[in-house]
């Protein structure tokens, strides 16, 4: 299932929305950049049958960068993440993660999923969930029990979850579970931290705590962060660049470059207003390309 991405050098020029296919994206090679590339996409295209989620995506994410992927439902945010995890092949172009084929690099990638909750009697304690991040992928049964336990304690301490190390995961709150998820994702000292709506369904307090934990790891170890979210506000203080996906087109740039009324209006082909208040960004307006965007509440991220 983890097919290597097809290296198709044929540069198929897409006829779709040339106006919105803004590629203020990848800084050219010549420009001096710190850190090395953790994620590289070249001419990447992802389509499901006729439906193109995005094409001609050129992107380099370097170590230490905090990169947010924004967009409404169905614009290919999660698929973007799956490509980086090696779970979904590109339909065109190439992708590499830490210089390797996505999927082959999974030990360098920490993955923080959306909070889902466990059945109450799941036979896992908080520490077992974290331990699975350390050696859950290895064959056989655990033999270096003491070393693993030691590392688990370290990780739990790091995310402030030491208090409930032995509590059943099924009885922990969403916020507590997400702390464990981060501890689990950090287990291998990843070069890339992938967060998939990791703050969804958390209260504001825990959104803040979890968001800070992710950022602290980036600052401390220089790992890159790719944060997929439909709401930029909980992470806005940390984000370096945004990939904004909308209706088959996209825009890449700093929050100040992307989160602007004229940019998003162009992207959606509809009147969008971006309001800023108290450091929060509010995007309003109902785009009319109902194709891909379902914004019942009239609010898009």
């Amino acid at each position: 299932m983890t097919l290597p991405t097809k290296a198709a050098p044929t540069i198929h020029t897409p006829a779709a929305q040339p106006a919105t296919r803004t590629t203020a994206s990848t800084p050219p090679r010549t420009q001096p950049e710190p850190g090395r590339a953790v994620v590289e996409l070249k001419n990447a295209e992802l389509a499901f049958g006729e439906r193109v989620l995005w094409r001609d995506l050129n992107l380099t994410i370097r170590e230490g960068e905090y990169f947010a992927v924004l967009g409404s439902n169905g614009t290919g945010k999660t698929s973007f993440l799956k490509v980086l995890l090696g779970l979904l092949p590109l339909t065109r172009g190439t992708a590499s993660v830490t210089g390797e084929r996505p999927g082959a690099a999974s030990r360098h990638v920490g993955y923080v999923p959306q909070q889902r909750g466990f059945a109450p009697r799941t036979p896992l304690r908080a520490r077992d969930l974290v331990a699975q991040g350390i050696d859950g992928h290895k064959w056989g049964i655990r033999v270096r029990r003491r070393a693993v336990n030691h590392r688990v304690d370290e990780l739990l301490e790091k995310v402030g979850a030491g208090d409930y190390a032995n509590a059943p995961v099924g009885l922990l709150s969403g916020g507590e579970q997400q702390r464990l998820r981060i501890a689990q994702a950090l287990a291998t000292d990843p070069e890339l931290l992938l967060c998939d709506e990791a703050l969804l369904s958390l209260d504001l307090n825990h959104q803040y705590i979890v968001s800070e934990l992710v950022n602290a790891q980036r600052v401390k170890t220089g790992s890159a962060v790719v944060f997929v979210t439909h709401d930029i506000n909980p992470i806005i203080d940390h984000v370096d660049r945004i990939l904004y996906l909308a209706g088959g087109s996209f825009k890449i740039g700093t929050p100040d470059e992307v989160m602007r009324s004229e940019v998003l209006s162009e992207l959606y082909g509809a009147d969008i207003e971006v309001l800023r208040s108290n450091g929060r960004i509010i995007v309003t307006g109902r785009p009319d390309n109902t194709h891909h965007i379902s914004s019942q509440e009239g609010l898009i991220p």
Partner: protein
Amino acid sequence: MITAAVDWDSIVSSVFVFDNYGELLALLSNSLWAGALLGLVGGLVGTLVMMRDLAFSVHGIAELSFAGAAAALLIGVDIVTGSLLGSVVAALIIGFMGLRARDSNSFVGVLMPFGLGLGILFLSLYEGRSSNKFSLLTGQIVSVSPVQLTSMMVLSIVVVAGLVIVWRPLTFASTDPVVAEARGLPVRTLSIVFMVLLGVSVAMSVQIVGALLVLALLITPAAAAMNLTVAPARTVVLSVVFAELSMVGGILLALGGNIPISPYVTTISFAIWLLTRVIRGIRERGSSYRQGGSEEHPHGGGQDPHAHGQGSQGLPVPVGDVRR
């Protein structure tokens, strides 16, 4: 009218028969060993069945295993081979149809009556000894031959060795499939491997406890263990201990009489489950699940429909956390 002709003495004396017990024990040591093997396999596999929420699939596999055994009986080939074939084929079909329980449940529901029907057809066509027929459904213990014991030994080794090899990734994929897949684990392949091992275990159990009562061996001990602990290693150990108690205990009680073994096994395993459930209830009433004090509100999120709201757990039901 109808005389309440329940002669309690005769019932008790036919349920608990201990005449010439020493001799019987020596004579039926094969059965005991077979039971011990089954306890080990059942306890181990059961833990994973519970983790993966596959109880219903186990029942479905057992019915097809029964059909396989009945077909073997009819055409006069080895019953073990027949039941093995039936259950592994069923396990593979279920495994390929759905990765997770909710996908495969309806399919199992379709498959199960068909298997049972086939089995009954084969049995009614069979003209041999009728006790053979009955034992496929309700189990037998008296006639474990040395050949049968050897085959069970080989199958047990296959299952236990297979489980040990895939243990960590399999438990990871069973309890946390999304992250396991992101981590690059072959979640689907692991699922198929487990289904094969499950099929083999079910076929072994069908021979001894019978198709209808496989769950008592593959589910109940693990469920009882999970009443007492959530620590994975402890769950496995307890599950095996409970399965052994049920199997070996059941055989020791069943040896003397002419009642099938299954009532003994199912009763013991049910009693163990009941006891553990009571212990769990008392514990949950008595204490919080936390080890130390936490500065945090225990129900910070409150949005998770699964984690809370179980009044029976003695935990406060969240009323929405408005700390900020």
